[in-house]
């Protein structure tokens, strides 16, 4: 009897932990939805901020986030896919190079996002941008300052491991028979990769891209000083423009705006938009990944 009671107690304690975590998740969702829903309408999504950010919408922040993640994906996905192909198809698992690349990818995945921001500032802006200025525009300040290109590239480095891991997982689910059949028919290795491996892992590439976009849309620390601005009266129309971003907007509005209480509805609604965006992207990615894993079994 004593043992049974103990079993029940321990089991319920662990069960309660699960419930607590789920409760927190649900309450974050619920509070964001309750706080943000009343203010979420078409005008909010399609208007510029007005009256010193206390009224109006978040249109430039949405567009800025979209452009930033698109440039980021253009930069990160090809590199991520090729690295994954190398790791899955070419690399000898025991070679030093393959091990080092794996370790580097894992390191990139755990380095704090603020370090990427510092790197973007030191490398892209302070080194590449400054040198580009002195080469092309005779020292006139154009690239040597925060802008959407540097922010996107910084974010691309941050999301590179996300792409690599997803794509490699997908490549590894392609049955060996298919590769062998292709090689047996006389195709070279590169032809096999192009015609068999890449088409077979297209859903993995898609998953990786979506996860990267969702991560990139939500991260704020890397763009704090590489290109995001508090307010911009126009949409970014060149790569050397600064931009507004949803996450940065939330941060600024909730901590540094002159009247935090008055803008609370805007803050909640912006958070809701960001949450809906990352959630719907994640949901698509998780479904795709689930299907890949099912196929692998």
């Amino acid at each position, binding site marked *: 009897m004593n*043992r049974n009671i103990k*079993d029940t107690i*321990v*089991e319920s*304690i*662990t*069960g309660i*932990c*699960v419930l607590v*975590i789920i409760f927190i*998740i649900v*309450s*974050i969702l619920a509070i*964001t939805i309750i*706080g943000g829903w009343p203010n979420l309408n078409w005008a909010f999504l399609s208007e510029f901020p007005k009256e010193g950010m206390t009224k109006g919408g978040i249109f430039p922040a949405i567009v800025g986030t979209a452009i930033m993640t698109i440039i980021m994906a253009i930069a990160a996905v090809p590199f991520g896919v*090729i690295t994954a192909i*190398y790791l899955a198809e*070419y690399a000898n698992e025991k070679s030093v190079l393959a091990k*080092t*690349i794996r370790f*580097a*990818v*894992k*390191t*990139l995945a*755990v*380095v*704090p*996002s*603020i*370090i990427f*921001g*510092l*790197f973007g*500032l*030191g*490398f892209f802006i*302070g*080194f590449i941008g400054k040198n580009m200025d002195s080469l092309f525009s005779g020292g006139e300040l154009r690239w040597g300052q925060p802008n959407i290109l540097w922010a996107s590239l910084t974010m691309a480095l941050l999301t*590179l491991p996300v792409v*690599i891991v997803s794509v490699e997982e997908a490549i590894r689910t392609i049955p*060996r028979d298919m*590769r062998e059949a292709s*090689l047996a028919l006389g195709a*070279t*290795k*590169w032809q096999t*990769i192009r015609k068999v491996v890449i088409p077979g892992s297209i859903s993995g590439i898609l998953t990786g891209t979506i996860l990267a976009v*969702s991560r990139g849309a*939500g991260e*704020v620390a890397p763009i704090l*000083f590489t290109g995001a601005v508090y307010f911009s009266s126009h949409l970014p129309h060149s790569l050397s423009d600064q931009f507004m971003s949803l*996450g940065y907007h939330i*941060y600024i509005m*909730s*901590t540094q705006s002159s009247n935090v209480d008055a803008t*609370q509805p805007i803050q*909640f609604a912006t958070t809701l938009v*960001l949450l809906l965006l*990352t959630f719907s992207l994640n949901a698509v990615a998780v479904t795709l990944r689930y299907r890949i894993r099912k196929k692998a079994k």
Partner: protein
Amino acid sequence: MYKVPGRIKNKNKETLQQMASFNKKKFRFSDWLAEKVIKAVAFLSIAVVILIFIFVFREAFPIFKMDSKSAAPTETLVQESYGGAETENSKVKTVDNKIASSNKKQTSSDKPSTSLFSNTWMPVSDNPRYGLWPLFLGTLKVTLIALLFAAPISILAAIYTAMFAKPRIREIIKPVIELLAGFPSVVIGFFALMVMATVLQNIFGYASRLNAFVGGIAMGLAAIPIIYTLTEDALTAIPKTFIEASLGLGASRRQTAFYVILPAAVPGIFAAVVLGLGRIFGETMIALMATGNAAMISMNPFDSVRTLSATIGAEMAEVVFGDTHYNVLFLIGSLLFIFTFALNAVAEFYFKNVVIRKYQSKK
């Protein structure tokens, strides 16, 4: 040469490799080029890590170099960008033209690197002090609180999911908790700032609304999905035969979980906690929004703190390029980088190669 499938035994592997080398195909340029290009691109991730090392450290380095220059007494050059009090005589050109032109601040008689060990972090003042001690203490406090909150709850939740939950319920619990990993940290920070701070203050009744405790709990939330997922993986990786043997001997599921599975999974759980620690340590947005951002030395968990990463996030946008303050912030970044790099290396090599082999060799 094509990789030999794992399911073919080692003996066959050698013969296969020999066969492959016998019928060497004729040299194809496109194949050769593709392999070289792919290899070069794959090298990029190593290059990025090295570049991060170089560029973050490069900007931090001048602090140590400046000491030798500032040894000679130089006049003060008050920074204008802060809108601080500008006095005429403070703008006297320094003897050393290099220092003046590179806009290096020589405001105090203190060397920048000795002030790193002082007890005050006051970078924006006439006599700037860059004492890292309060920032270290703040980070330590927040990290400890976050870990004490996140580690037990996520490990216990993982035990429930792996051991006690029915398969159908497990299929629901896992994705829901992993949902938390999809929350951007700025959203968790916002939730902590708007909701948790008020709720926790009402419960515990402490003075400052934003403090190490609120920040720690919020950062714990960010670490929960990492610790939970990795622990769950470690628990389910234990061979089924262990569980069956234990249950067959008449042990209950609880006894099996705590006396058989948990000890066997300890290295994996450690690795999970270490990676969670890395996430907490480097978390910036939650720290910026929920910890109150006051750099003070106190042991009270309900006081406001300023963490290392939040300091970078809050101050970097306002500093002058190449300024001492700028260099100190990069120095903090270097420290953060070294620490997370080391944590990752420990989780990767020590736990995976040493500990796991030792404990789980019976597989």
